[in-house]
């Protein structure tokens, strides 16, 4: 294996960076000259929103993973406990069946099994509920993809406009979707509810 340091990599990265800088400058100048700056600025204004949406996805997926791991760890500990108790009670039964029953070992064991089974069911339900992140993040991802598509569409329009010498025909501005999907920043979003109790209060105030 060749251990010689590859010095061409940083140079190549710097070159790419320089080219991106030039493209950005050209785009900026062209937009100003063509009067497209305001149009694209509208989309760029949505980028901080896209960033908060991506943060929301990261947070939700992280919380879901944490929740699942916590529940699995608890369930495994309980499973280990029942497995150990089973071995112990079997040994007691083999050694002295009458004493095992008389001392309440069998009854206590069955009570433990019933309790742990119920708790295992709760863990499984919580693990299932944690998967709701798929729906919520899916909706948010769709909005971010939509934003990227809008920017792409506007850039394509810009290319079309700059190709012929004729006067430019501005593209239709993107219209915001009516349905907003999950609220990623409830503290800074007016007129939204943040939990089920607020939904219930609102409906109750309407007589429902």
């Amino acid at each position: 294996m060749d251990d010689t340091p590859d010095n061409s990599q940083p140079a190549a990265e710097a070159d790419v960076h320089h080219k991106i800088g030039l493209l950005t400058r050209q785009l900026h100048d062209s937009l100003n000259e063509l009067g497209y700056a305001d149009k694209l600025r509208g989309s760029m204004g949505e980028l901080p929103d896209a960033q908060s949406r991506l943060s929301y996805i990261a947070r939700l997926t992280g919380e879901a993973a944490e929740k699942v791991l916590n529940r699995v760890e608890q369930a495994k500990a309980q499973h280990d406990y029942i497995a150990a108790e089973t071995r112990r009670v079997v040994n007691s039964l083999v050694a002295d069946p009458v004493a095992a029953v008389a001392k309440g070992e069998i009854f206590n064991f069955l009570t433990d099994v019933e309790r742990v089974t119920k708790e295992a069911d709760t863990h499984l339900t919580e693990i299932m509920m944690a998967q709701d992140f798929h729906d919520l993040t899916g909706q948010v991802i769709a909005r971010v993809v939509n934003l990227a598509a809008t920017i792409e569409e506007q850039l394509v329009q810009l290319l079309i406009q700059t190709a012929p010498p004729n006067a430019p025909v501005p593209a239709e501005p993107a219209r915001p979707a009516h349905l907003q999907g999950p609220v990623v920043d409830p503290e800074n979003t007016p007129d939204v509810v943040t939990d089920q109790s607020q939904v219930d209060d609102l409906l109750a105030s309407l007589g429902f």
Partner: protein
Amino acid sequence: MTTALRFLIVDDFSTMRRIVRNLLKESGFSDADEAEDGVAALNKLRNSKFDFVVTDINMPNMNGFQLLAEIKKDDKLKHLPVLMVTAEARKEDIVAAAQGGAAGYIVKPFTKATLEEKVTLILKKMGL
């Protein structure tokens, strides 16, 4: 509690349909079918008997509001209770759902207890 009521669960995400289906089953409602959007839901509602609709709002082809409107203007379906289970948390959406005839509104993420409570409440109001 176990009843013979038949539920239709409408959501474009199969994960959420499975979650709702399992939660309903845990609450004693084991008879359920699924649809991925309002169009598929209407098709099933018009070709089979259901007692309860649990629907998302933000779906392709036909969203939950449109599905609700279609159900409420159909003489054969308008008696069906429609519970909206959605991530749409704007107050105007909640008001619109109520005014459109929705029987209940749950915001995602929700808990098993919330779903069970709302379904039970709606059934109680209907005398079921």
